[in-house]
């Protein structure tokens, strides 16, 4: 069998938060390409979901 997990479609509005291995850091990426890092998932989501008005600074912690 092949892997069966569906993946988000590239043309869709996709937000991604990656937990950086070996650290406590979260890296957020908006569908517009804007990126942030932080250590609080609530703050990272708020930063991403502010699209298109992402707050200044890329660290929402």
């Amino acid at each position, binding site marked *: 069998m092949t892997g069966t997990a569906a993946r*988000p479609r590239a043309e869709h509005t996709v937000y991604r938060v990656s937990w950086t291995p070996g650290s406590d850091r979260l890296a957020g990426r908006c569908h517009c390409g804007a990126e942030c890092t932080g250590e609080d998932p609530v703050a990272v*989501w708020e930063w991403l979901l502010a699209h298109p008005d992402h707050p200044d600074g890329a660290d929402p912690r």
Partner: protein
Amino acid sequence: MMSTGFIRDQWYVAAHAHEVGEDLLARTVLGEPIVLYRTADGTPVGLADRCVHRRFPLSLSQRVDDRIVCGYHGFTYDRTGACVAVPGQRRIPRTARVPAYPVVERDSLVWVWIGEPDRADPAAIPRAPWLDAPGWTTVRGLEPLAARYGLLVDNLLDLSHETYLHAGYIGTPEVAETPITTEVDDDARVVHVRRRMKDVACPPFYARSTGITGRIDRWQDIEFHPPCLYLLHARIAPTGVEPAPDGTDPHAFHAEIVYAITPETQTSTHDFWLVARDFATDDAEVSRFLAESNRTVVLQDVAALNALERVIAAEPPGFQELSINIDTGGLAARRLLNAMASEASGAGPLPDGRSG
């Protein structure tokens, strides 16, 4: 009956397909009592489970061919919910009809549409084709959960709890230690959470079912289709065994862990669980072991969430939770659910009252 606080205008799993047969099955979904049965031609039917006359449950009545004869006074309903006979008179009151729910049987599950029937689009039902596909074997169950729906969503979106709540079954230290990647597809309305573990211990759940004795690479790829369907694509392989470049993966073991999370009332939930596998598909002992083990795991969750429900019910509103990295997927799911709740007709906030 309209209920507040639920996400209406959505499909929900009301039953495993095998539960719906000749007998009348009572099941409450989003506070709405429904009677389910299967007509002679095999079609599943869902009607409001209350006679229009004196509200007697139709599920406690008699079935005659494809009709239900109320066990109290004999009002008789056809498969569309229309009353076709009343006792002692020929005239059938114009309003003698019970609502019929849109019902679709798909992938061995029976889905009902809770909301405006005109909005029911079967194409919107998320798929889980492994559940009755050739080459796969599925074990399944349903456990009653005396806790609000949102608590089970939180539980399933954060599998780090396996390490602590399910040690000895599916939990190993590496689950909680391994970072996750969370993606939200806002257009498709799907939450993806991926955890890829390399060279880790094989928990008994997979060691006994696959026969792997050494360390493994373990993938947990969650795909949550709110509000109801949760898919966990699990890949287990001896460490170092990778999928082939063409995407095939013949040397790994795949398990599709599926949950259908269906609110029963504001504070109770139907916890449908299924485990489909593409290995040892003819081995009854593996089926028995996986069914027993997964039910044990589900009951561990049920006990924990029932306790949590009692805590939440007893405390004043407004408790400030603390979220950490492991909660990234759960937070994403809450946000989508809240967005859907605000859009749905007649809907209010989530049953647990929290925001995303």
